[in-house]
């Protein structure tokens, strides 16, 4: 892409990219820990996930400022402009994913010491899939790889299917065991947060496609 004519711009944009990846790593970690604190019923860890979300918010605003400065001082156009705008949208989605991880951690705290309603099976699957998609979507963004981004977006169907299965199972339990409604609802909240994380990853994939092709499309309605 560069033949040395836009050295400053290229260096500053590379820094934005690095920061976006860093933000992605922080949130990936938060998602992983949110599952861990749910599995181990570790309230201290849950509180840490909630507290660490502040660093995610700060980094997100910091990246946004860098993007604004880049637009104001370097006047990017064409694919450069699309890349900066894509980065600004992507960090919003990553930051919201962090909020969903914190949402799971808050649910863990609400659950207190009550035993889990049932063993966790599909929620760890959703978590693993969401983390894999997050990494792949960011790689597609960095590589400007529309084909990979489309594949990532497609995987959201699997997350949705898992959510549906969890939903049906928990509603079934609730309808037979009224005293389990509260505990079932907690698990449902966790699954719902993961389902939303999948939607946010799809947004990132959409932005990666827009950046590389200029096409603005909703991939997963």
């Amino acid at each position, binding site marked *: *892409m*560069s*033949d040395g*004519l*836009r050295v400053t*711009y290229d260096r500053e944009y590379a820094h934005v990219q690095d920061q976006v990846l860093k933000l992605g790593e922080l949130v990936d970690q938060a998602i992983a820990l949110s599952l861990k604190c749910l599995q181990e019923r570790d309230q201290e860890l849950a509180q840490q996930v909630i507290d660490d979300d502040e660093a995610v918010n700060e980094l997100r605003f910091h990246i946004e400022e860098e993007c604004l400065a880049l637009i104001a001082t370097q*006047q*990017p*156009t*064409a*694919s*450069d*402009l*699309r890349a900066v705008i894509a980065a600004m949208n992507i960090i919003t989605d990553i930051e919201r994913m962090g909020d969903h991880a914190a949402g799971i951690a808050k649910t863990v705290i609400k659950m207190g010491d009550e035993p889990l309603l049932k063993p966790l099976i599909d929620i760890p699957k959703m978590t693993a899939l969401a983390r894999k998609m997050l990494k792949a979507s960011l790689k597609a963004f960095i590589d400007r790889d529309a084909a990979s981004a489309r594949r990532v977006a497609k995987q959201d169907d699997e997350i949705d299917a898992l959510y549906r299965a969890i939903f049906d199972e928990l509603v079934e339990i609730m309808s037979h065991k009224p005293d389990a409604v509260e505990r079932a609802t907690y698990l449902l909240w966790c699954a719902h947060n993961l389902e939303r994380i999948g939607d946010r990853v799809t947004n990132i994939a959409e932005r990666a496609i827009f950046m590389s092709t*200029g096409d603005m499309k909703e991939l997963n309605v």
Partner: protein
Amino acid sequence: MTENNVKFVVRDLDFYYGHFKALSDISLDIREREITALIGPSGCGKSTFLRCLNRMNDPIPDARLEGQVLLEGEDINHPEVDVVDLRRRVGMVFQKPNPFPQSVYDNVAFGPRVLGMVDGKADLEAIVERSLKRAVLWDEVAGNLRGNALGLSLGEQQRLCIARVLAVEPDVILMDEPCSALDPVATLRIEDLMRQLKEHYTIVIVTHNMQQAARVSDRTGLFWLGELIEFGETSRIFTRPKESRTEDYITGRMG
């Protein structure tokens, strides 16, 4: 974007300076009451192309043109075309403001007088006032129409040159780097003026300032080594160009 009528149709245009082919196979439509910007690195042919639109290249020895330039369907290079009338209809504003060393009034009155467009003193005064108002210069010079035009600021001089073009009632205004000698504020005033003028006139501007092309024009064409690489709506060219050379040029990685 709504499609205005086409003012100029250019087809298969080649232009030579002696043996040097300065323009190669240019075809494009210039729509009326739009601003068309031509961009590209120095020597790419954009100014040569602009000058083909009112035959300003005619006096250059050994210059030769092939292909067609149609203004409202008429071939402007036809031997029977009256070049003076063509240049009245298709006026030009240059890089450096070039007012005559005369009064503001006489600068604007020059064209209508020479072309015999005037019916008495009151008529001429009306033309001068209307032209200066359309060039958004009236408020600044109304109190001193007899003052020497060279006493104006450069930005005012350039708007005076635009008023001078407007006085002969053109259809099209060609602008060759009209702001390159002006400071940023004077530049923005000219750009505002261009937007107002396009209500009535067709404007074609050559500019090295890509942000200017992006700000002011409806359509943009990129010239490169005598070829038209890409031509399209400005909003698309600056966000989603189709050609990699356009991408490289407007992102500052070529040229």
